């Protein structure tokens, strides 16, 4: 009896294997996915407990393309895009439209309400009435100014083309360069494989620059001495991955970092020492392939995300 059971079970198993072969060969659906594609889906998922932000407002701009976003002291929103700048109030209502003829890639606003635009290899200064105030010298034939920040009398510009940060005075005089590789002072040099290179001034007045190829943030003195840095290279939600990330960042009012990435499109918050704190927006909220999610933070600590694919300004607030 026992022997019979053993034989029957073994034969059933054997026939199951034959059935598996038949099913697998004839009836399994062909795999439609590209076998050579790098699958990022699992990496798009994050801890829902960390998703403490919600999108509270979004508005369109009248610009054909959008590249940069900034906030002034009156909480007005400046968006730089194709051949112009559009200015909105904090509710997203258009206040001004400026035609700049050329297309700015980056934007900042100083305390006097002047608009600083990074246009390819140089900086231009405009006022709200659409008048060009100044045009600074070209930074070089390969320069691409991807970010501008103002602190007192200093203007900082990030040049992704030549992988360096410039420090100017208010009149556009170049004072010094920051971040050039120098083993003597332990400055590692910026690694920038794609034209996303951001910098910012923290609320306590320090200059921070992204070193995207190293997945790190570096804090410099205005003279170019490297003070500290933190880095977070990881495929998981907690870190930055790919060739070069984060692509953009901004500071919350309590000096926390808000970062955005490309490849796996997401916006997150980090503590000043690089501890991952929260998810602002997940990859599912963006079109796949969105790049250049520029960021700004207003007085109410709302996070403004420039979505260049949907051509929207999207505002996120803590739940």
């Amino acid at each position, binding site marked *: 009896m026992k*022997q019979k059971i*053993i*034989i029957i079970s*073994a*034969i059933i*198993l*054997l026939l*199951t*294997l*034959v059935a*598996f*072969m038949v099913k*697998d*060969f*004839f009836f399994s659906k*062909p*795999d*439609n*996915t*590209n*076998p050579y594609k*790098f699958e990022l889906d699992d990496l798009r998922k994050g801890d829902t407990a960390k998703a403490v932000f919600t999108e509270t407002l979004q508005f369109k701009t009248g610009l054909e393309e959008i590249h940069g976003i900034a906030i002034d002291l009156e909480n007005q929103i400046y968006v730089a895009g194709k051949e112009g700048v559009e200015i909105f109030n904090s509710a997203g209502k258009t206040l001004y439209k400026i035609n700049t003829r050329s297309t700015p890639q980056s934007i900042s606003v100083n305390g006097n309400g002047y608009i600083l635009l990074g246009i390819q290899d140089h900086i231009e200064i405009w006022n709200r009435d659409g008048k060009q105030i100044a045009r600074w010298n070209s930074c070089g034939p390969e320069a691409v100014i991807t970010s501008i920040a103002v602190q007192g009398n200093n203007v900082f510009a990030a040049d992704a083309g030549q992988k360096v940060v410039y420090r100017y005075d208010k009149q556009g005089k170049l004072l010094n360069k920051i971040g050039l*590789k120098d083993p003597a002072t332990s400055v590692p*040099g910026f*690694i920038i*494989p794609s034209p996303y290179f951001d910098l910012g001034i923290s609320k306590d007045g320090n200059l921070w620059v992204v070193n995207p*190829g190293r*997945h790190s943030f570096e804090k410099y003195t205005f003279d170019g001495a490297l003070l500290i840095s933190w880095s977070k*290279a990881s*495929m998981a939600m907690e870190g930055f*991955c790919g*060739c070069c990330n984060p692509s953009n960042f901004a500071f919350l009012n309590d000096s926390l970092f808000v970062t955005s990435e490309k490849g796996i499109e997401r916006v997150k918050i980090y503590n000043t020492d690089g501890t991952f704190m929260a998810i602002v927006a997940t990859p599912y909220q963006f079109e796949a392939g969105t790049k250049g999610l520029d960021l700004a933070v207003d007085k109410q600590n709302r996070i403004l995300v420039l979505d260049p694919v949907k051509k929207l300004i999207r505002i996120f607030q803590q739940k």
Partner: protein
Amino acid sequence: MKKTLAIVFLVFLFAVQFMNSYAIQRFPKPEFESGYVQPETLLPNPRAEMLAILDIAVLIISLSVVSWLVIKKRNRNAVFWMSVFALAYFGFYREGCVCSIGSIQNVTLAIFDTSYLIPLSAIIFFMAPLVYTAFFGRTFCAAVCPFGAIQDLVAFSPQKLGSRLNAVLGVIPYIYLGLAVLYAATGTDFIICRYDPFVGIWRLDASFGMFIFGGILLVVGIFIARPYCRFLCPYGVLLNWTSRFSRKHITITPAECIQCRLCENSCPYDAIEMPVTTKNPEDKGTMARKLIFITILIPILMLAGGWVGSRLHEPLASVNAKVRLAKQILNPVTEKNQPETFEIEAFKSAGKQQSQAFAEASVVLHKFYIGSWILGGFIGLVFGGLIAGRMMTKHRTDYTPNKGTCLSCVRCVDYCPVKLPK
């Protein structure tokens, strides 16, 4: 001792396989400026010709040694250690490639596709075991084939299946062989390799599905000795046919069978045939009637099989890449959120015309139509042979190994009390 060795070996194998099944993908962070120099992309060199010749030499030497051990020495222990060597060399060192079983497909493809350049080693791995079998029986299966060797290691508690069950399950390898030839001849797939249960074990990199497949086969092999050899192996079919006509073959007894019945249950593969002593031999009339019946039945079964096969040629062809592409072009996936299939994407980017894809598919379909007739006819013939075999009464006086199904393992020899004087 052998049993313990086998258990330790299997536990190790499964542990390694299990770890592999759960490996995850990751990629390193790129380096751009640390002085790292990208190495030149190198293509792996083809296997050195000398090593291919070494494989052939090892095959021929192994076949010769095992045949000598089986036919002349009748030494089970030595045969066992030769099978361990085969497992190590053809299994783990050569990672199951080139293998005689899979070489059926290379040979078929070479016959039907003149642009396919078949490696010499594939031809020799296909031919040599058959030639040796024609002379000495299935000595290749005894201790040269790594598939047989690994299954032999786990055959701890083989059960008798009975002749009917053996006969019915024994049809599967014929169907498998027919399909393997059809798919190789049409350039569709090498299904023997696709469903090679042990290659993942040789290479220690089985996918989870194939790991389970191979694992279950080995578990089944504890109770049904060598299940792959007996009920799946398509090359076994060719060896079985050839072995029936072998000039020499292992015998249980070295001299006269004394009908002691000691060997009756010694074969783990149910390959020993009992003596059949018919008390009332069939009269000539009955014999003639049976013969006429079989001669009529077999062509009918072949025709019916061929007809059924031809009706199935489209489903059979549906796994061919060209036919599948043409089908997808005709009925693009309309389901929401379903991306365009990878094949269509590739087809579009190659800038080919739709008509070209349809023309290629119809050539393949025609091949399948003819192939399915032949396959169906072949399966009809197999069933006919099965019925004929069961109808014809045999006459046997001794316990003898069935020349077709005996794997020349030499186990039964030790049970025979008749010994030749040294």
